[in-house]
């Protein structure tokens, strides 16, 4: 585990923090969340080109910075802290990883560079109904094709930033199994319907595909959806931990500033103990998120994971998702409560994170689903140990 960050990593974090506190104050978040696409083109360009955040984890020969999941985790954590509005998770993280895994060299050339540079924004469409990304859930059909083009038919739900995407990667089922298919955001046969989401800082859409023309990505390794879900959970866990810390900081600050009965309310023992409990929850969850990022970093090639790697990745990804999302919601609830009435108002910023926490709780699957998924991974490990013994 990357137990402690290097000086370079700390510096990297500082630079992102500075950038976001300048460019993404909550006044800006509030403006962007009221728009349809929740996105500022200029800021997106700055993020992707000046700070090169969209390509952190992309190999240098594909136009990225060549770092790994740990550095990506740092960026995500800071974005979660700031409630960064823009298709970072959907395009730079999920779609880029999908392309790294599934695209062949030509396809990577064709799309990954643009995604890494932020030039084009891509969304990943997997879910149709269930929370976890399981093969059984994929009813969208891919027909025809060969090397050139396939036709997609079906419906996808909760496509993050689907309404602003230049490209969409769709998980679909053909006779030979499940693979990812690339479509243009403006292709015929694609209908995008924006969803009204609890968290207006993260846009989502349903999409419908009626004979939409698509290109099949060449590689479709076993357990593809599992691996993508692991990446998604680890990214989300690291994003969430930033939100946790932001909330905790604001609870600590506010209770210290707030005087009732002649005392700062932070001097009341019941408040102090709850803040101590929260700090414990956040730090434990932080460890889970960091460990999951490290476990991802330890996987040299996501296309060819061995069983042991896959099992660990699943265990740690689901563990982190389940742990952090419950801590996030709890921290948000407590932060509202510790603000008193003011914490329930629109003008107070707490609800922005509360809503992110609330929706992150079920995004990519509920905590209970991930606990079950983690248990299954652990059991399979125990069984294979027994078999080995």
């Amino acid at each position, binding site marked *: 585990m990357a137990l402690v960050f290097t000086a370079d990593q700390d510096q990297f974090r500082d630079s992102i923090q500075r950038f976001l506190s300048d460019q993404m104050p909550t006044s800006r978040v509030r403006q962007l969340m009221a728009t349809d696409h929740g996105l500022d083109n200029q800021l997106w360009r700055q993020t992707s080109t000046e700070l090169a955040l969209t390509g952190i984890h992309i190999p240098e020969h594909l136009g990225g910075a060549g770092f790994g999941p740990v550095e990506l985790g740092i960026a995500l954590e800071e974005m979660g802290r700031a409630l960064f509005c823009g298709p970072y998770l959907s395009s730079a993280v999920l779609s880029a990883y999908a392309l790294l895994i599934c695209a062949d060299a030509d396809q990577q050339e064709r799309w990954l560079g643009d995604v890494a540079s932020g030039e084009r924004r891509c969304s990943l469409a997997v879910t149709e109904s269930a929370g976890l990304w399981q093969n059984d859930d994929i009813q969208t059909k891919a027909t025809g094709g060969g090397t050139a083009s396939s036709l997609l038919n079906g419906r996808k739900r909760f496509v993050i930033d689907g309404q602003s995407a230049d490209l969409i990667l769709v998980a679909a089922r053909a006779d030979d199994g499940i693979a990812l298919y690339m479509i243009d955001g403006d292709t015929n046969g694609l209908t995008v319907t924006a969803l*009204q989401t*609890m968290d207006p800082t993260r846009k989502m859409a349903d999409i419908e595909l009626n004979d939409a023309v698509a290109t099949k990505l060449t590689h479709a390794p076993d357990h593809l959806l599992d691996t993508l879900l692991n990446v998604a959970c680890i990214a989300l866990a690291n994003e969430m931990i930033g939100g946790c810390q932001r909330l905790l900081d604001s609870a600590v600050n*506010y209770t210290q500033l707030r005087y009732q*009965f*002649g005392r700062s309310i932070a001097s009341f023992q019941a408040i102090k103990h709850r803040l101590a409990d929260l700090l414990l929850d956040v730090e434990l969850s932080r460890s889970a998120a960091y460990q999951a990022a490290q476990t991802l970093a330890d996987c040299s090639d996501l296309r060819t994971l061995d069983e042991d790697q896959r099992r660990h990745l699943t265990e740690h990804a689901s563990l982190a998702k389940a742990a952090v999302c419950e801590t996030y919601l709890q921290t948000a609830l407590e932060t509202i*409560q510790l603000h008193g009435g*003011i914490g*329930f*108002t629109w003008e107070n910023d707490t609800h922005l994170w509360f809503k992110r926490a609330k929706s992150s709780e079920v995004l990519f699957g509920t905590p209970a689903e991930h606990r079950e998924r983690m248990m299954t991974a652990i059991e399979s490990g125990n069984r294979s140990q027994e078999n080995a013994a």
Partner: protein
Amino acid sequence: MNQTTTLHAEVTQWLDEHWDPNMDLLNWRSLVADSGWGAPSWPSDYYGKDMSPMEASIVEQAFADYGAVGAAQSGVRMLAALTLLAHGSHDQKQKYLRGILTGEDQWCQLFSEPGSGSDLAGATTRADLRGDEWIINGQKVWNTSAHHAQYGLLLARTDWDAPKHQGLTYFVINMEQPGVEVRQLAQMNGHASFNEVFMTDAVVSRDDLVGEPGGGWKCAMTTLANERRSFDRARDIGARKGRQGKIFRDLEEEFAIANEPYTWYPQRAGRVDLILQRAVATGAIDDPAQRQDIARLHIMAESAKWTGERAKAAAKAGKPQGPEGSLGKLAASNVARLAARVHTAISGNDALLTGANSPMDGVIAEILVSTPAISIAGGTDEIQKNIIAERVMGLPKEPRVDDGPFRDVRRNTSGPTTKA
């Protein structure tokens, strides 16, 4: 018994003679107020009939049996009436009580401030005497219906050298004056149930000081003690719905306005009633782990309900108040919090949605963004726990650091703005 029958008959006869559902509401209530039947337990000098609460409830029952509308008794106006009856001058009672019963005047409560929420007695809105007028400066918050109110019940500081409870004075303030500005306060769930009230050199006549200078805390306690009772009334009245006549149309309009801030309150409480139906609809009912959580919620909600019933029955039986009576609000917070969690789990992915996209046309999303209010509004859970610990369990108070002159008490200097 006989007395009951006689009184009931007397009211019925009066209603036979006067009741006309085609009158407009204000005219009818003027008649009721002047007759004394609108508030029979009040003194006969002030629109009442000096009756006992028992007799008054017979009158009320007679109105209900007849299907006739009574005096306006809902919301803050009743708190105002009861406070004025207890502490007001003769002139104040003469001036204000009738407009309360006729429903002509609406009232609001101006106690809480941005800087004093749990600690009401820490109010820093100031009242300074200038000639025959008190000049008011300060900000109040959490003022239900202030945007409709003609009058406000104002708690303001008149003595900064006294200890904090002793420097407060209670006033009636006319809300319709240039120095008073009311702003609706938007909530994180999109509703706006409360207002902020800004007072800048607002004026209160000397005659509108209620009770004694420095005696405001005692008056405020009277208001607060009556708070729950009078809110309960506002809800009973749905029973008259569907009756014909202008008077009922007027009444429904009145209710619609009065209840507008509260439309989301059922969601705030967590909607336990929807859980089973939703669990069946989504299939969560077949998930053994989810069943455990649903069961936990059911157990908590039923136990809380029974505890409330025990408290009511004990009160009715004349038994001393046991602990069960003080726990309702805290239990309701716990139920709502757990219900929101269970609703989320049941909804899975769909808990991401809001508005028309959210299950049950947005009701589920409204639960999720509303339940955080229940542990805050009307006294935070923390305050409830202090009360339970100190008053019910008799545990010692904490050392106090705010008992000197108020001037020296540490407090929120400017009061955090709502941009906290």
